[in-house]
């Protein structure tokens, strides 16, 4: 049915967004390392349940490495690099829960479902349409960039400024022609239709969604109490 079912747990896109928001606000007020470790462990279990194994492993390894750097490497560093290194390590460690959850959102949510979820929240079409196009354009952008750099190698372009100009101009030109073609294509498919769009995949909350939304709310409450 087009849903990306990987693991044993399937979440509603709205749950993932709410949870992401909850974690996001929580990490700002929390300054206890143990609470952070619990949140992180819970997130990694969630990722494993949802079947995103690679990202779960990556996050776990990154988190443990950052903790190890902080407690085993930093005390032996000279003071000059310590200041900046400490900030980098702490910031990345604190932002890691957000990154982990965002990976889950990106890897398990098709863009169609995300659009549908945002529409359920009554976000205006003027925001949803460009948003979907932006997400869809990123892979194309990589292809374009590859083609341009191949062409530059053939023509032997030198100099930083010249190279930059030779990348920018074709990118912008192709982007503006793509925009014209794409708008014709989607108009032909009836994006102008003012009626709310339907979705073939039924989207509703299950028990796991209610539980996780509850968790998100608890995190928010903790965040504001700590504030």
């Amino acid at each position: 049915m087009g849903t990306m079912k990987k693991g044993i747990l399937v979440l509603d896109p709205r749950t993932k967004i709410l949870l992401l928001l909850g974690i996001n606000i929580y990490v700002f007020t929390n300054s206890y390392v143990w609470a952070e470790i619990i949140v992180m462990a819970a997130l990694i279990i969630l990722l494993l349940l949802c079947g995103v194994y690679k990202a779960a492993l990556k996050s776990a390894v990154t988190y443990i490495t950052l903790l190890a750097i902080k407690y085993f490497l930093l005390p032996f560093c000279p003071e000059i690099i310590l200041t900046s290194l400490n900030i980098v390590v702490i910031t990345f460690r604190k932002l890691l829960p957000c990154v982990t959850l965002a990976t889950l959102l990106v890897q398990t949510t098709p863009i169609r479902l995300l659009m549908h979820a945002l529409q359920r929240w009554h976000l205006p079409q003027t925001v949803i349409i460009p948003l979907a196009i932006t997400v869809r354009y990123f892979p194309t952008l990589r292809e374009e960039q590859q083609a341009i750099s191949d062409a530059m190698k053939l023509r032997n372009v030198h100099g930083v400024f010249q190279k930059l100009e030779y990348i920018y101009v074709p990118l912008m030109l192709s982007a503006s022609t793509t925009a014209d073609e794409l708008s014709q294509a989607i108009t032909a498919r009836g994006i102008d239709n003012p009626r709310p769009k339907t979705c073939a995949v039924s989207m509703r909350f299950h028990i796991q969604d209610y539980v996780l939304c509850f968790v998100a709310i608890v995190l928010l409450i903790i965040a504001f109490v700590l504030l």
Partner: protein
Amino acid sequence: MENNKLKVKDLVNIGIFSALYMAIAMVVMLPVGITPVLWLLWPGIAGLFGGAFFTLLLAKVPKMGSALLLAIISGILFFATGECTWVIIVTFAVAGILGEIARKIFGYKSFKGIALAGGFSAIGFIGSPLPMWLFQESYMKSIEEMGMGVEYVEGLQSMISVGSFIGMLAVAFVGGFIGTLIGRKMLKKHFEKAGIV
């Protein structure tokens, strides 16, 4: 002024140029991981390199809301991909609104409006390094844990202070502003002749 409403074509343009604007910001973000000082300069650098896309978009879509939509989309996507936290949505929304006000005052077709909006949009990127100020408590706590000296605290405070915050804002605005100037040069050289704008 009668056609001031965004049509499907305009929305597609905004979507595609937002992708370019964000992609270039992410590319220049790569070296930032090395040192936090570069992170403070990142909004300015991102605005500088993204300015050309921004200028072309606003020249193509001289209507109300295009700068705001670009800012909001960048904010939402930076948030959803985990590159940045929710703070960036707020900063980008504020930046977008400021940009729209500037464009309204100077007129949607004038370059002054575009340049100011470009500067304000670059300010939106400060949502990324802003957690450094909000995480201060954690930094101080880790200093206590490790029993660091006064020197260290001073170094930290000089980096995360009101002064450096204002500096960051200024760098971001100037970066975005210069970016649009470069963009205008490019438009004149390549795009006006081809009849795209």
